[in-house]
């Protein structure tokens, strides 16, 4: 029983790790607190639910969700860069607009597809032992996504993205439009968030409009937990820290539910937990700025 819960918490934590990778780009790399995430996570879910119900290949839903999320990210970027709206407000506007978009795509506030195929029920799953199938497939997805992500960060484009968050002036000095780089970063970030939404939707075999609420906090908490807990681990790359951060975070949440926390108090606990992490984090970095 306990082992089962631990496994399902790890599975969901790993799905949220993909969301956390997206947040890592917008929050850590680009230094852009992007709230559109609360809209792009359910966007990925809505697109996936509709595609699966209409009979599409569940694996194709993943890139489809990524592209939809990326498009939304570009729009957030356009609002910020072209219309000079502050980064926080651009995200809030996009999140609000996406709520209606998501309802329009799905047609209603929740959609179930218990009998349709998902990535967890296809040919790949049949090759695996039944009890571990989900976990193995999720790990496989996360490994591929993380590998592609790490590879991208080493390309010229990825390096420019890292430079843009740390020193926008340098990007301009290199004769590149820094606005376009921000849009690119937001596209990748929201693409990953939406991809995570697609996986979660297939995992739950349904779309629910409320899943988006708090995505930003979940992702951000995962990023910060990962970077804080493993800050001394020199050999561990940032992305691996973020992935583990996502898993740790979700394990904590599951543990509190298991210990009898009332579900209606969950968001309160999430916010409190996040506050604690932020406080610890700022204390740590104040004490050891040289570490950063």
């Amino acid at each position, binding site marked *: 029983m306990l082992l089962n819960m631990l496994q399902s918490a790890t599975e969901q934590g790993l799905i949220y790790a993909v969301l956390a990778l997206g947040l890592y780009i917008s929050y850590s790399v680009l230094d852009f607190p992007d709230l559109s995430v609360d809209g792009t996570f359910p966007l990925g879910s809505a697109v996936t639910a509709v595609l699966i119900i209409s009979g599409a290949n569940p694996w194709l839903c993943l890139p489809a969700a990524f592209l939809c999320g990326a498009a939304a990210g570009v729009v957030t970027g356009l609002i910020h860069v072209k219309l000079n709206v502050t980064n926080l407000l651009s995200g809030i506007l996009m999140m609000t607009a996406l709520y209606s978009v998501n309802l329009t795509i799905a047609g209603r506030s929740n959609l179930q597809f218990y009998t349709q195929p998902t990535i967890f029920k296809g040919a790949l799953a049949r090759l695996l032992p039944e009890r571990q199938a989900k976990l193995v497939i999720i790990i496989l997805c996360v490994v591929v996504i993380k590998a592609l992500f790490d590879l*991208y960060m*080493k*390309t*010229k*484009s*990825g*390096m*420019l993205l*890292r*430079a843009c*968050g*740390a*020193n926008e*002036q*340098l*990007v*301009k*000095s*290199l*004769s*590149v*439009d*820094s606005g376009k780089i921000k849009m690119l970063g937001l596209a990748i970030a929201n693409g990953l968030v939406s991809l995570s939404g697609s996986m979660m939707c297939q995992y739950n075999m349904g779309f629910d409009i409320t899943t988006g609420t708090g995505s930003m906090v979940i992702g951000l908490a995962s990023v910060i937990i990962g970077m804080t807990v493993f800050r001394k681990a020199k050999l561990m790359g940032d992305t691996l820290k973020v992935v583990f951060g996502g898993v740790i975070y979700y394990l904590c949440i599951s543990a509190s539910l298991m210990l009898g926390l009332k579900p209606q108090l969950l968001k309160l606990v999430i916010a409190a937990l996040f506050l604690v992490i932020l406080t610890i984090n700022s204390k740590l970095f104040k004490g050891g700025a040289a570490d950063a």
Partner: protein
Amino acid sequence: MLELKDICKTYNVGLINETKVLEGFNLSVPKGQFVTVIGSNGSGKTTILNLICGTIFPNSGKIFLDGSDVTSMTEFRRARHIGRVFQDTQKGTSPNMTILENLSLADNKGRFYGLGMGVNRKRIEAYKEMLAPLGLGLENKLDVLVGSLSGGQRQALAMVMCTMTDIELLILDEHTAALDPKTSELIIGLTNKIVREKGITTMMVTHNLRHAVSYGDRLLMFHRGGIEMDLSGEARRNVDVDDLLDRFNQISIESGN
């Protein structure tokens, strides 16, 4: 080479704090000339540099670079032809990346930043040769994060990065002002070496009068949006720090402060 024609620049047009900084400003810098610029605070030096680089745009007038009109060209497009080193030593490099990654980024300036690998290992020897003459030992620290370097080291790296691709104009915006005296001497020496070796047209703003008289082929003193003093050739060679100080004091008395 660089030409500013009849430039007017007023900040906060139509507001109560409207400030006219430049009115009918003209300047022509021939190819290969190394110009040093001095002037008190508020004399318009930074405004001129910002106008040349495209950080701000003039209310009227034209700016030509190598014969082509760049007046309305955006900052990042103009940066293709102009290199700029700032007073703030943080602005020329990316702290979250290694020296090697920073150099690789700068090496690709003017070309497309696509999905090719960011670091070209074949260029490492060339990078080491660029860093060795600085005498800072940076050539042995290629994998060190730039954020952990000192201000002087970062500024030296910024100089190398902004002159490693072909540029037509180098803008130095009080680039030694934030450094300690020893490092400041090192950077100014390095600057002179790079500028002379590559023969880049250069405008260097400085508050250090000794630097202003010891380096460069032409000296400009700005005052209230105009050129108070423009020395080159014989007159430039004979001027010393005391002459400049006298002139500064004279101006200050005339303008009542």
